[in-house]
């Protein structure tokens, strides 16, 4: 147990530089943005001297590293700045994020359930029928679902389930629980392709192992061999990558939320980009990056928990 604790601590310490990189990229974003930030906030008909005074006041004349330091200081205090978009002028970015965060988490949770709900059974099915036309069919599905960009899949599902058949609402949140199904399905299907492939290869590998052959030779019913013994072990590598899936979901959420006007952080990013509301964009990217870091941590810890060899490495 002690080695697990020290492993987790080590991984936690390693996550710090990644978060630093995220803050740096987010800060650099504002720095790279073309145009003078002061002219954006200055009142009209302002003299060059007044502009200079404003620059001095907000610290835009300071060296890059000083500005970055000040940015970090504010972040540590939980201050992500204020929105400069017309609709949410001067609202704290942290408030806007807090409003949207539950929606994104909800979408990711249901998307993950769909992804595993489809991927694991399909992978097992495919492995048990290796090299038959059913297996090939599943593999073709995974190839196509993996290659499909999420916005295009979203549009297709929207056409099939909303526009032509009216089974589900096309966008927004007015339909209650039904409204989340389309975006979550879009998000989940692409990842289900990866889960299916992993589950299939893991199942095939486990089935080749000696203890499975031994169970079969002892006359255990095939059903019991597969579901009681093989499946448990085959699922381990699939479950441990659940954390890595979060990275995929974060990127997917930005696009999917935009397609379906789902009011989460992803849609906030795109609307803020088009409104040139960079403090909000910064906040969103930072939060999404932290998601990814947490996801990777979960993956590492789960993996070490399952496979003790990793902790010592």
């Amino acid at each position, binding site marked *: 147990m002690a080695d697990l604790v020290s492993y987790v601590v080590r991984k936690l310490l390693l996550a710090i*530089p*990644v978060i630093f*990189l*995220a803050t740096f*990229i*987010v800060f*650099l*974003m*504002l720095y*790279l*943005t*073309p145009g003078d930030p002061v002219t954006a906030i200055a009142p009209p008909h302002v003299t060059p001297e007044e502009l200079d005074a404003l620059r001095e006041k907000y610290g835009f004349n300071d060296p890059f590293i000083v500005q970055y330091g000040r940015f970090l200081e504010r972040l540590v205090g939980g201050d992500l700045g204020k929105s400069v978009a017309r609709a949410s002028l001067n609202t704290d970015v942290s408030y806007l994020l807090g409003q949207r965060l539950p929606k994104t988490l909800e979408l990711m949770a249901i998307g993950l359930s769909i992804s595993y709900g489809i991927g694991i059974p399909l992978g097992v099915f495919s492995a048990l029928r290796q090299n038959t036309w059913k297996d090939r069919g599943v593999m073709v599905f995974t*190839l*196509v679902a*993996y*290659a*499909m*960009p*999420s*916005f*295009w899949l979203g*549009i*297709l599902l*929207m*056409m099939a389930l909303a*526009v*032509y058949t009216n089974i589900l609402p096309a966008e927004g949140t007015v339909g209650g629980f039904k409204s989340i199904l389309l975006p979550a399905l879009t998000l989940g299907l692409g990842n289900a392709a*990866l889960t299916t*492939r*992993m589950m*299939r*290869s893991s199942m*095939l590998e486990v089935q080749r192992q000696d203890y499975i052959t031994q169970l079969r030779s002892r006359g255990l019913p095939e059903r019991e061999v597969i579901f009681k013994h093989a499946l448990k072990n085959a699922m381990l590598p699939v479950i441990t*990558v659940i954390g*890595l899936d979060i*990275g*995929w979901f*974060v*990127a997917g959420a*930005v*696009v999917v939320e*935009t*397609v379906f006007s789902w009011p989460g952080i992803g849609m906030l*990013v*795109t609307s803020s*980009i*088009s409104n040139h509301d*960079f403090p909000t*964009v910064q906040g969103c*990217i930072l939060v*999404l*990056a932290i998601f*990814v*870091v947490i996801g*990777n941590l979960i993956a590492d810890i789960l993996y070490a928990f399952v496979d003790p060899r990793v902790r010592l490495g």
Partner: protein
Amino acid sequence: MRLRKSLNDRLIGWKMAGGAKEAVANMLQRGGRNKMVVIGFSIVLLMVILALLAPILPIADPTPSELHPEDQTLPPHWWERFGYNVSKGDGHWFGTDELGRDVFSRVIWGARVSLMVATLAVFFSLIIGVLLGLTAGYFGGKVDYVIAGTIDLFWTFPAFLLALAFAAALGGSLTNVILAISISYWAGFARLMRGQALSVRERLFVEASRALGAKNIRIMFAHVLPNCLAPLIVWASIGVADAITIESSLSFLGVGTQPPTPSWGYMLYRGIPYLEEAPWVATFPGIVLLLTILGFNLLGDGLRDVLDPRMKGMRR
């Protein structure tokens, strides 16, 4: 066939140690017998030819200076069988979009944009990745420690999020999108290159050439790099597919290629309000986009299976 043969001949002409030329030639030769490689390569080749020939193909202007309101959202002329009134259409294979422009021609010109952005982005990522990975893996020690740390940092960060941040900050344009994808995507190449370099530098022929007095630079580029070519080719093919996905997603979100330059992602975005009355506006760019990504994925996956059958079915 002839193409593969000439490539083989050329590879044999290279002066490489450690069986590198055989490895690459072998991969390409066996690739010709792999179904995934053949299908993937055919799709890729078709798209590349169409993209290259776009200016001389007898197709409509993708960005006409004069728009004709009467041409808006005309159905493809062969959609008569689906009950569409095609009396106004005059030979639009994929119909016209909401501004009356020919969708077929915009899809072909879109291929040009997508393929150019993706290939250049992968090319630049490859250069950054190979240089950093090779340096880290070959020299090891402190150099490796610093570079490998940086590689891991960028590897952890989802490429799409990074590209979105840079594209949003720099503003949408072709150059900026290429830049944004290159900055976000190089870590994969660097990881691969570092791993390969770490193992190749221990091989006997590297030691032999060092004993003969070859300089580090020469060993790195004449001996270590060529021996990592095969996996790099695989990764580059999958990389182009990823880059096309990122590019089209960025344009879909409005931070990528800017209109009126035809871009598949933006065409799909514009097609959403017309899904019911004019589904062709979004459908055709979508099908071609999917097919292209599928082509590069198949090519990459197939070549990887040929290269290392143990990795079959694994992709993370």
